[in-house]
């Protein structure tokens, strides 16, 4: 909402020393968000004079017609000056706006005396566009009146300050000068004469005149419908200059007197109006519901398909407008309109909001109706409009017809002490009452209760809390105390919150960089990753309105986003990346419609469960992508690249950080290299996968060869973390070290052999570590030799040689049984 300061000053007595910024600060304190204070023609630097055109000489020898004019800019402007002008929309005797040499126009364009078209042009006759007053470029500005040599700036609105206010959805009344000036009057403590309650002077209609008839099919949707008729209007009558200036300053383009007047009254009072060409109507005009399947071409030349919940304006021939949103093209006022019907109505906010949303049609009217228009304003506003039309366009007033549902503003009961209790500071009864009355409420004191009736322009005031806000904002938020409540004893971070921090810190300390990628994915990425249709990582959760049709799904895996981020970094010159992300993935498919319980009471347990059951599963995952250099070449030797083992190691590091136990087994995930992929198991279930990415995946993302990755279901891993870790028994007795090598078939995994050795060695085994793998002439084909270092220790004694040997033999025997391992050299 754009509010010119001079217009506000016309409505209330703002102290003269107040600048636009001062006024803006007042409104901001009252809760109206003034976004900018703009000065119209702010780019004009220097004088602008009213000039009278004395002579025009047409120069015809050029490519386009040019005029050599003699313009009188009065004694102050240096008398009569010769000026070259390309425009043709003026004649001798017209008053025009002249910028003299030295004046700077918007865009830094400085006027100078210069030779052009064979004459010395000593100034410039200005257009609205050149002064940045509007986009209008049909010729120069011709003033309706003026004295040569006078300052032209106030006449054309240059220097006018305009406040641009972002009006929140609860403050429909602030979409008018009326509403804004009311707030300012309260703030400045000056009297307020409500222009919305002025009854405009209209001539008495002729006794036999019959105004156009109106109606409402549904008083819930349209509680008030009025139609005012004027005949014999002069279609050629122009809008007065001041009205055009105010409309332009208010952000609206002047069109014609009839349209301008409806817009002007809307800006002034907040009531959207619509003017019909009466001769294009047939029968009574009424508000009603559209027949499904009907259509209407609106003023913006769009043909709209209508449904049964579109509220429309109809006559006997059908639909002539979308109620409160936009008129139809066929009944529009045009250059020949002489008989006019002005519609002023009240439409239910939700009805208009729904229509505006569905038709993606946000108009000046719909923005006001969906925020709530003064329920009783319509007849006042249409009288104001009719008076202006008759004043400037002539015509005869025929009268008004109206239909209206009973209006019951209702009463809100509030304890007198409530504003003080909510604010946490004393606010006495007198203050509460005075402030509520200032915003327009009727207040009755009933003991310690107030019975409050909200004014018709404040449909947002329905609850005691709304009244509290009115009182507290007008007392001033700056006067609130600053106190600290004593919170209940807290629990600190939850287990999972704490462990996630530990994981993030550990990964970063080990060289990985956290990223937060967008969760939007598309089929082409998932195809590039070779994720099969049945795989849980194949996204099923789709957005109805994705930003890009290429990526309509929500991720079911963190890897696509990480791979793309890795590619971006490599593309920007990074020789190696180690990226991780902790984030939700979206799995499963929601079938059905989530319930919408009542908001008047707590939802039942069943309803709440059903609602949550319809949400996709959203586990927290950890993803890591490792690509290219892990360690750069340096004085220590050549560079070292990331590989499958780094990914597996990360999984093990994370498990250790949180104390969960995982096992690694050979995997076969299609995203990964078929021979270099590990399944991560936890509590007997697979919870992730790690290893070298499949070469085709690496190629699709243009990553370095052997790029590797890891993805884990972190919720599952954290669920298995111990709540408490028991202390170990640290034995001070000596360790017995035994090395052994076993020969196994290549198909047997180290994990299997290690597990067998561990199981066979028994409780005395403290640790086991693979320290060498050998395959070659010393072992049979298809076999390899695995060398392990075992450490034995007892908690309570020094182990004897026999005990150690027995444990060692136990390990060997078990490996033989479980894995076919044969001890080497033993």
């Amino acid at each position, binding site marked *: 909402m754009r509010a010119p300061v001079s217009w506000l000053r016309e409505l209330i007595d703002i102290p003269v020393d107040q600048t636009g910024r001062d006024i803006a600060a007042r409104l901001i*304190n*009252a*809760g109206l*968000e003034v976004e900018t204070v703009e000065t119209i023609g702010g780019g004009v630097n220097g004088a602008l004079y009213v000039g009278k055109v004395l002579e025009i000489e047409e120069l015809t020898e050029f490519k386009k017609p040019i005029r050599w004019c003699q313009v009188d800019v009065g004694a102050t402007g240096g008398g009569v000056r010769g000026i070259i002008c390309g425009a043709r929309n003026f004649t001798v005797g017209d008053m025009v706006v002249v910028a003299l040499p030295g004046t700077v126009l918007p865009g830094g364009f400085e006027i100078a005396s210069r030779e052009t078209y064979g004459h010395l042009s000593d100034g410039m006759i200005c257009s609205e566009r050149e002064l940045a007053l509007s986009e209008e470029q049909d010729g120069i500005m011709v003033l309706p009146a003026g004295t040569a040599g006078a300052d032209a700036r106030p006449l054309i609105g240059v220097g006018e300050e305009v406040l641009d206010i972002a009006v*929140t*959805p609860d403050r429909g009344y602030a979409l008018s000068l009326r509403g804004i000036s009311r707030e300012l009057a309260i703030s400045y403590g000056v009297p307020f004469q409500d222009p919305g309650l002025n009854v405009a002077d209209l001539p008495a209609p002729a006794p036999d005149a019959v105004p156009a008839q109106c109606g409402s099919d549904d008083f819930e949707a349209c509680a008030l419908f009025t139609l005012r008729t004027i005949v014999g209007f002069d279609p050629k009558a122009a809008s007065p200059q001041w009205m055009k200036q105010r409309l332009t300053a208010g952000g609206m383009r002047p069109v014609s007197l009839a349209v301008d007047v409806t817009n002007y009254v809307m800006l002034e009072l907040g009531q959207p109006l619509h003017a019909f060409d009466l001769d294009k109507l047939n029968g009574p005009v009424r508000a009603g519901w559209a027949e499904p399947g009907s259509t209407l071409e609106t003023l913006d030349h769009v043909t709209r398909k209508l449904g049964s919940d579109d509220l429309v304006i109809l006559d006997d021939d059908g639909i002539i407008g979308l109620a409160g949103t936009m008129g139809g093209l066929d009944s529009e006022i045009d250059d020949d309109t002489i008989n006019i019907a002005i519609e002023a109505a009240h439409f239910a906010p*939700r009805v208009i*909001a729904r229509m505006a*949303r569905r038709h993606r049609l946000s108009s000046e009217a719909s923005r006001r109706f*969906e925020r709530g228009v003064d329920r009783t304003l319509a007849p006042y506003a249409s009288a104001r409009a009719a008076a202006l039309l008759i004043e400037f366009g002539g015509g005869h007033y025929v009268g008004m017809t109206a239909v209206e549902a009973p209006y019951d503003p209702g009463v809100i009961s509030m304890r007198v002490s409530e504003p003080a209790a*909510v604010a*946490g*500071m004393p606010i006495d009864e007198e203050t509460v009452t005075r402030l509520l009355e200032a915003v327009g409420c009727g207040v009755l004191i009933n003991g310690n209760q107030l019975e409050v009736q909200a004014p018709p322009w404040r449909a947002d005031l329905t609850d005691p*809390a709304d009244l509290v*806000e009115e009182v*507290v*904002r007008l007392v001033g*938020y*700056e006067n*609130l105390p*600053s106190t*600290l*409540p004593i*919170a*209940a004893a*807290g629990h600190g971070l939850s287990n999972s919150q704490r462990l996630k921090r530990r994981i*993030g*810190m550990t990964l*970063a*300390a*080990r*060289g*990985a*960089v*956290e*990223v937060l*990628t*967008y969760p939007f994915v598309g089929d082409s990425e998932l195809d590039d990753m070779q994720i099969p249709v049945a795989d849980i990582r194949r996204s099923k*959760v*789709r*957005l*109805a*309105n994705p930003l890009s049709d290429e990526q309509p799904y*929500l991720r079911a895996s963190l890897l696509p986003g990480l791979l793309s*981020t890795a590619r971006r*970094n490599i593309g920007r010159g990074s020789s190696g*990346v180690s*990226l991780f992300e902790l984030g*939700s993935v979206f799995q499963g498919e929601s079938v059905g419609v*989530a*319930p919408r*319980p*009542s*908001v008047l*009471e*707590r939802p039942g347990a069943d309803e709440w469960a059903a609602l949550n059951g319809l*949400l*996709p599963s*959203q586990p927290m995952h950890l993803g890591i992508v490792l690509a290219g250099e892990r360690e750069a070449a340096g004085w*220590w030797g050549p560079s070292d690249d990331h590989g499958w083992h780094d990914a597996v190691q990360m999984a093990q590091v994370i498990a250790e950080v949180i104390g969960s136990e995982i096992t690694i087994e050979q995997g076969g995930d299609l995203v990964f290299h078929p021979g270099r992929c590990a399944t991560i198991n936890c509590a007997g279930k697979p919870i992730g996968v790690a290893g070298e990415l499949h070469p085709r995946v690496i190629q699709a993302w243009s990553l370095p060869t052997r790029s590797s990755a890891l993805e884990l279901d972190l919720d599952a891993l954290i669920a298995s973390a111990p709540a408490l870790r028991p202390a170990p028994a640290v034995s001070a007795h000596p360790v017995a070290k035994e090395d052994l090598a076993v020969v196994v078939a290549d198909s047997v995994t180290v994990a299997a052999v290690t597990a067998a050795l561990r199981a066979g060695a028994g409780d005395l085994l403290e640790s086991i570590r693979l320290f060498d793998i050998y395959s070659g002439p010393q072992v049979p084909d298809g076999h390899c030799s695995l060398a392990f270092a075992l450490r034995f220790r007892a908690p309570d004694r020094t182990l004897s040689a026999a005990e150690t040997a027995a444990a060692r033999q136990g390990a060997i025997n078990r490996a033989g049984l479980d894995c076919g391992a044969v001890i080497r050299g033993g």
Partner: protein
Amino acid sequence: MSGPNTSFDPKQVAVLGAEAIATMVAEALAAVSAAGDLAVLKEVRLAHAGDRSPLALANRDIGALPPAAKAEVGKRVGEARGAVKAALGSRQIELERARDEFVLAEEFIDVTLPAMRVPLGARHPLTTVMERICDVFIAMGYDIAEGPEAEAEWVNFDALNVPPDHPARTMQDTFYVGSPESGVVLRTQTSPIQIRAMLDRQLPIYVVAPGRVYRTDELDATHTPVFHQVEGLAVDVGLTMGDLKGTLDHFAQEMFDPGIVTRLRPSYFPFTEPSAELDVQCFVCRGASIDNSAEPCRTCGSEGWIEWGGCGMVNPRVLQAVGIDPAKYRGFAFGMGIERTLMFRNGVTDMRDMVEGDLRFSLAFGLES
């Protein structure tokens, strides 16, 4: 071993005379000082203190002396051997030191060589800012609440007093999951976590909830469709707007600077009433840039205040929707954008830096922000 001398011969024991012993000592000491390295010293030790050395032989002969001479000679020889041993010992230390100095000098390494072979990684600054916020509130006794990103429309809107077709729904451009009628959206704000906290927890409730939120904005320097907010909620008996103000003052001081103050401006949110916009005093210029064109402030645009978030007293209608008696309990709530916080707190100028995942951006923050 020398036993008592049975065939005493005075000529043979002439070596035990004082002069002879002194000569032996002098020779030994000269050899010790002449030894230039540890190998020579070893030979000197063998020659002058070894089993076959003159002093050792002299010592052996003492046994042959008559008992009356034994004490005197024994003392003389003992002292002589002690002196030689001491000289050898100190020379040994001297030569070892000299050798060590040489060797250590040889082992010189330029320790300014790069030692960071695998550099440190980093956490995303948005994460660490959220953690910092959580820590501030944990210190005040709050818990950290969570909720799903794909959220029921009822939780994201209806229960927060945003009925269907209310213009407030179009204030936030919403991603719908499945179909526009599915009743499931990507949460447009962290406020639905308020609803979950009030349904899931025992009163009184003091929680903050950081999280990811979504709106259908295209990515540019100041917008991103995926961003982060932190929500705060307190529901207790007797809470006031002054309590809200005090909590936000403390929060701002912890996040920016002690002594920083906040400002509340009336505003509108469906789920709070009264509602306010929260501004923090610019912690760079502290308001000194207002109307001071000589020293403009880039952080606050010379406004002196920075818009930080929204807040207010929980609308009783919201309490009603979750079954909390508004006649008994009052609440306050607040929310702010994490990206925005990082932008003005740490001077990030382009939203895209926070979403692109360029390593260089996060690495500049390390493990803290």
